[in-house]
């Protein structure tokens, strides 16, 4: 028996979680999240051989994440984590236990983002914090990158 590919497992988890969250939250537009699962499945099935499959999956999944986060931020967090897992596993990046640990770390970071958004009243303040932290990480990293290159270029 052929085992299911990791991205399909993620999709099953996404579908189950979305249905459960929609039922639990009793959203008046409950059908929207269910309908938005269809494009994700369609892209998952149709773009199997495409080199930019990750991008197509992310594009098809983003409306679902927005709809879920519109119902409840934690439902959106669940959808975003599973979608990210689906994208990176489609690229072959989740295969071992070590990869799962890294994925769990990513989910923890996304949890902090969700918490920050939940605690904020307006878009601007969490956006500035998120972009500031991202910029800081990239700035520190660019210095390390420069030193790394310098070492290997014999400088």
């Amino acid at each position, binding site marked *: 028996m052929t085992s299911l590919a990791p991205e399909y497992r993620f999709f099953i988890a996404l579908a189950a979680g979305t249905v459960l969250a929609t039922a639990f939250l009793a959203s008046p537009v409950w059908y929207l999240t269910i309908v938005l699962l269809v494009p994700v499945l369609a892209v998952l099935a149709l773009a199997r051989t495409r*080199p*930019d499959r*990750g*991008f197509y999956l*992310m*594009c098809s999944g*983003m409306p679902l*994440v*927005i*709809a879920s*986060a*519109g119902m409840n*931020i934690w439902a*959106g*967090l669940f959808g*975003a984590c599973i*979608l*990210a897992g689906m*994208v*990176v596993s489609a*690229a*072959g*990046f989740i295969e071992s236990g070590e990869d799962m640990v*890294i994925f769990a770390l*990513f989910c923890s*970071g*996304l949890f902090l*983002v*969700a918490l920050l*958004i939940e605690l*904020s009243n*307006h*878009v*601007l303040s*969490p*956006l500035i914090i*998120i*972009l500031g932290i*991202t910029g800081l*990480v*990239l700035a520190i*990293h660019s210095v390390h*990158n420069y030193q*790394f*290159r310098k*070492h*290997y*270029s*014999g400088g």
Partner: protein
Amino acid sequence: MLPRRCTQGLCILGILLLAWAVILDDMAVLFAGSTLVAVIVWQYLLFDHQLREIVASIEVRRTLSRNPVRKGTSLQVSSGITFRGSPRMQVEMADLIPATTTLDDGTTTIAARPGPKPRTIECTYRIIPLIHGTHNFSGISINVRNHFFEETILMTRPMDCEPTLTVLPTGLFAAPVSELADGTRDNRKASIWSGLDIHSLREFQSGDDLRHADWKISAKYDKIFIRKYTAPMSYPPLVIVDLPFVGAPFREKEFGRMISEVTGLIQQNIQTFQYVSVLIISGPNILHLIREERNGARCMAEIREWMHPAERTVHFYHMPDRSDIRSYTRNCESALEQATDPGVLAFYESLRNRYLAVLQYQRNPAFSGQVARTLSQILTTEAYFFSLGYGDISHIRHVIRPLKAQKIKVHLRIISTAPMADIDLLENLKKTVGVRP
């Protein structure tokens, strides 16, 4: 680190979502946009980690089919590159050949996927060195990519540029066979014959060859007398190389030709005379003297080291020497005798006085003395002077004049025929000094 098409698309999508979130003040859209930013940063850090792992594990080992090698001849290079890392990354490695060589055959690029265990991949190719000297490999270029990012790193540490390729210059020049005054050619072959004429006689000493005994004289004086022979000896020509100034333009092709000619002459001298003397100058600066070198390899190593455009601490700036000025003065005086027009007379008188004033204060430059002292160490009957002929060539007179004074035949070889060379000055030089081009 360059984002690939997928990541570029995600970046655009993320920016659009964040902009939408700001415009609509929608927290759900902000979360979706932040998710994209987080995914991109996550993949960026992951890619960087795996890239460092691969680059840190790389070891290069090159083997050359022969070293040293002559310029223009092909040699085979086998490169073994060992590396390990995540199998999700695609690695393309290019072995960078020395800048002064050209790829003759084979490919220097290898594409592979790393594994958790160290893996060695090999490539074999042939290169042709174009310029003599010692050259290192330029290192290796590593291109690593996955679905999201791509990065190229140039590894040029000393260990990545080994081994050093030693390229020997090639000889393309053969000096004409010199002729003696009586029309015969001297025999340059090494011979067991010790001489032609008897130089002296002396009493036999233990160890002397009895074949050299003069039996007639020995019978006369009742003692064994040994003949001491003498023979005409030919000296190898002195090779003088005038290197171009590093700060002035010159043509690499012509410089290469000059080096080839010099190398050829040196090789021929070593083969024929068993030794060679080379004087290396650059303008009015004496750089190096290779004096009576018998070891061909050592001589070639010195040539390889010195045969490059050189700095000139002293410049002559087209300076005529004292004999030139005297000649100009004589020309003025003869013109004065023939001139009748008062204007012309005044002009030549003024010119002569100017020359005489210059002659009064101008002394022979230090370079002339250095050349004379250097030449006094060398026994030779012929000299070959190689120069590109670019820029100021007034120093050539200061070399040729002492050679002519010692009755040394000079062959002036000016390589350049390009407009960069001062052709008129060269012609004048050849006529004035009376050298055979």
